């Protein structure tokens, strides 16, 4: 072990962060005196929760943001990186969490885009040969002439990595790369990273998943609330220690409640629907949700989950099949009628559920403004609305507790509370929650989970769509797995095991037993 440590210390330093501080006005300190070193030819994990400042730090390294204080030292030289172009010239490549690809362009057009060495005429066509040889070398199989919108998330990520390699990147930053991948695709990614390491390239790997750190990283730097907690060899630190360092406090975990009733709330019978690009997105989906039950929908993003939520709440036409709420058919009814018959919807995109420019009070009233007690007809009784929103703000602990501020100045977690307060306060029979905790910090996630469980206890049926398998295992009574618009598996359990996790992971990736 000591030997390993020595080997690590002998390696030359590729990147050093020296007291980096970054503020976002008015009062957010995203990075606070961050200092650590990344050695050449290693995979260096940057571990931390959402909001720990990992992405901000990497955006600084990539020249997207300038630090307020501190400096970056690359191969021994203090360097000011004020644009991505300078970063690229320094051999830095970045694979962002949200791919920065242009869907209507081809793979090779995306790869050569912005490169100074590209020939003036026929830039994309002339690059195809080199792209092919690179993809063979690093195991990134992709057709350079394919249009990006036709590719899966895993394939898009390969394009992003090829883009960096084509630019002769020596330092590759990957921002939560596995969040869009199946476990099997993640294995392929790790193989690519190992191949890169062999070539002497350096990878900085942003993640919040502990086991990934142990699996792929040589060194790990843990960040919390903008500060570095520690930098150690990943072989010399246990999972428990890592967990303690990232979170900083005990996580209260919730166990799924038992189902109290056999009454069916939601029933889908062989439902099919089209996606945005006139391509079938849902194929013969049959599904039930019972009273007081949380049904989790597992799957890699883009396998029909979004469309599933949309057909139930009436935002997307059903082309075939039937949807029943209790005994009443709600297939292709207007969204408003479905909502008023007792369906609450927590959309994935929080911009969808809220009107940013409008006040908290107005946002809380978005469902009820035209009905008693708030309106008897033409006018809205704003005094009643005000009192109602004060009540909800305190019940759901929305902070800051002000009803007249525009909702877009709230933090992500509080914005989500506004949506949930509005939707759950109507005592719905059915809740459709689509990635309700995406992008929230630990305490925010916990609060949202508690609210969902409270709704479950009050007898609502909940359809929980989530890309985070751990979240589903924590909350669901039953899990269905979606792949390419179909339900490819279903499991009901009181306690979920590591074996279940593995099996669901395989099915999410389309592997059948």
């Amino acid at each position, binding site marked *: 072990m000591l030997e390993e440590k020595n080997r690590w210390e002998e390696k030359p330093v590729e990147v050093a962060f020296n007291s980096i501080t970054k503020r976002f006005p008015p009062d957010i300190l995203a990075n606070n005196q961050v200092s650590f070193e990344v050695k050449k030819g290693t995979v260096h994990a940057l571990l931390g929760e959402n909001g720990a400042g990992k992405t901000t730090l990497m955006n600084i390294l990539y020249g997207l943001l300038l630090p307020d204080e501190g400096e970056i030292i690359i191969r021994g030289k203090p360097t000011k990186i004020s644009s991505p172009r300078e970063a690229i010239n320094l051999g830095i490549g970045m694979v962002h969490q949200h791919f920065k690809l242009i869907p209507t362009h081809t793979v090779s057009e995306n790869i050569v*885009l912005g490169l100074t060495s590209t020939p003036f005429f026929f830039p994309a066509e002339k690059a195809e040969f080199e792209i092919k040889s690179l993809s063979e070398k690093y195991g990134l199989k992709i057709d350079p002439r394919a249009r990006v919108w036709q590719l899966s998330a895993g394939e898009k990520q390969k394009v992003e990595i090829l883009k960096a390699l084509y630019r002769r990147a020596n330092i590759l930053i990957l921002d939560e790369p596995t969040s869009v991948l199946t476990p099997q695709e993640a294995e392929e990614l790790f193989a690519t990273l190992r191949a890169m390491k062999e070539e002497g390239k350096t990878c900085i790997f942003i993640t919040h998943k502990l086991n990934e750190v142990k699996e792929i990283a040589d060194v790990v730097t843990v960040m919390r609330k903008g500060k570095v907690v520690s930098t150690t060899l990943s072989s010399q630190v246990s999972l428990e220690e890592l967990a303690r360092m990232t979170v900083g406090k005990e996580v209260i975990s919730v166990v799924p409640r038992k189902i109290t009733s056999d009454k069916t709330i939601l029933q889908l019978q062989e439902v099919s629907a089209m996606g945005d690009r006139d391509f079938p997105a849902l194929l013969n989906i049959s599904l039930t949700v019972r009273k007081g039950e949380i049904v989790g929908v597992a799957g890699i993003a883009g396998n029909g989950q979004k469309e599933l939520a949309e057909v139930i709440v009436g935002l997307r036409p059903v082309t075939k099949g039937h949807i029943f709420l209790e005994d009443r058919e709600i297939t292709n009814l207007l969204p408003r009628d479905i909502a008023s018959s007792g369906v609450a919807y927590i959309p994935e995109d929080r911009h969808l559920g809220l009107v940013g420019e409008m006040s908290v009070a107005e946002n809380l009233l978005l469902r009820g403004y035209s009905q008693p007690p708030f309106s008897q007809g033409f006018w809205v009784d704003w005094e009643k609305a005000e009192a109602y929103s004060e009540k909800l703000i305190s019940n759901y602990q929305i902070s800051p507790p002000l009803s007249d501020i525009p909702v877009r100045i709230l933090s992500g977690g509080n914005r989500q509370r506004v949506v949930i307060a509005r939707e759950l306060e109507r005592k719905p029979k059915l809740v459709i929650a689509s990635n309700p905790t995406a992008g929230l910090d630990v305490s925010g996630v916990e609060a949202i989970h508690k609210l969902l469980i409270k709704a479950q206890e009050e007898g609502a049926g909940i359809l929980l769509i989530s890309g985070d398998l751990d979240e589903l295992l924590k909350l669901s009574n039953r899990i269905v797995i979606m792949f390419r618009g179909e339900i490819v598996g279903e499991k009901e359990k009181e306690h979920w095991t590591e074996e279940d996790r593995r099996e669901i992971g395989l099915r999410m990736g389309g592997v059948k037993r």
Partner: protein
Amino acid sequence: MILELILGTLNRALAYGTPLLLATLGEICVERAGVLNLGVEGMMMLGAFSSFVVAYVTSNPWLGILGGAIAGGLFSLIHAFSSITLRANQTVSGLALTMLGTGIAETLGRNWEGKVLSSPIKPFSEDFLSLFPPGVRTLFRDSNLLVVGSIILALVLWFFLFKTKPGLSLRSCGENPAACDALGINVWKVRYMAVFGGGVMAGLGGAYIAVAYRPAWSSGMTQGMGWLAVALTIFSFWNPLYAPLGAYLFGALFHLAFRLQVFVAPEILNSLPYLFPVVALVFVSRLAFRKKIGVPGSLGKPYERGEWE
């Protein structure tokens, strides 16, 4: 005989459609980079006025054309500044550009009202045309170098956009500026240049009217052609290769409306060129916007780096 009539109509369509084509190509270039410029009418008007003044003073129509192009380009930079640098509302900024351009041209143009150019750009000479077969001769009877040049420009712009490196950058900035920024493309520079190029082409369109098509100054001489160009941009699905089709179709309709004046009141016929684009938009808008054919992905959206909202 019928062929002769068709060729005759097409001849006028070429002459009338050319300013439309130039302005449309300019707007395609701007919108492909993600900027919506509704100030085409203002840029054309200012281009027309500048070119007329330069041509009148120097007695050289080609200097006039150059003046119109430069004026259109420089004037468009106001829109570039407000919509790219200051991230102002692009629709309103374009409207302001139109108000300002027509306002300046008409206010300063008062002293030039009714003046006629002594040396306008002339159609191809008979000697030159006699080198070609009779059909071609009829077709290009009223054309000049600018007409042919604008057709070539359409081809060049298509090749530029789809087969060259800067063209790829320009289209990419219109689709996903954040991605371009991350790759080290200077989105602001690309968009500024696209807007400038669009302004030059709109200015050329205006100059063609004032120096070649109707070589005399009168206020309001662009007759809303700038707006037609904005509609034609949609009509051609943002593809320079389709732009001539649309522009000459409208040119032909203008000509036919003129020919029909014997039978119908001119005011009603004069309305037709403005009704046609609305009807045309009815047919293509749904296809373009709902199915997203050709529409640049971030058209009209200002780009700001590092928005963490």
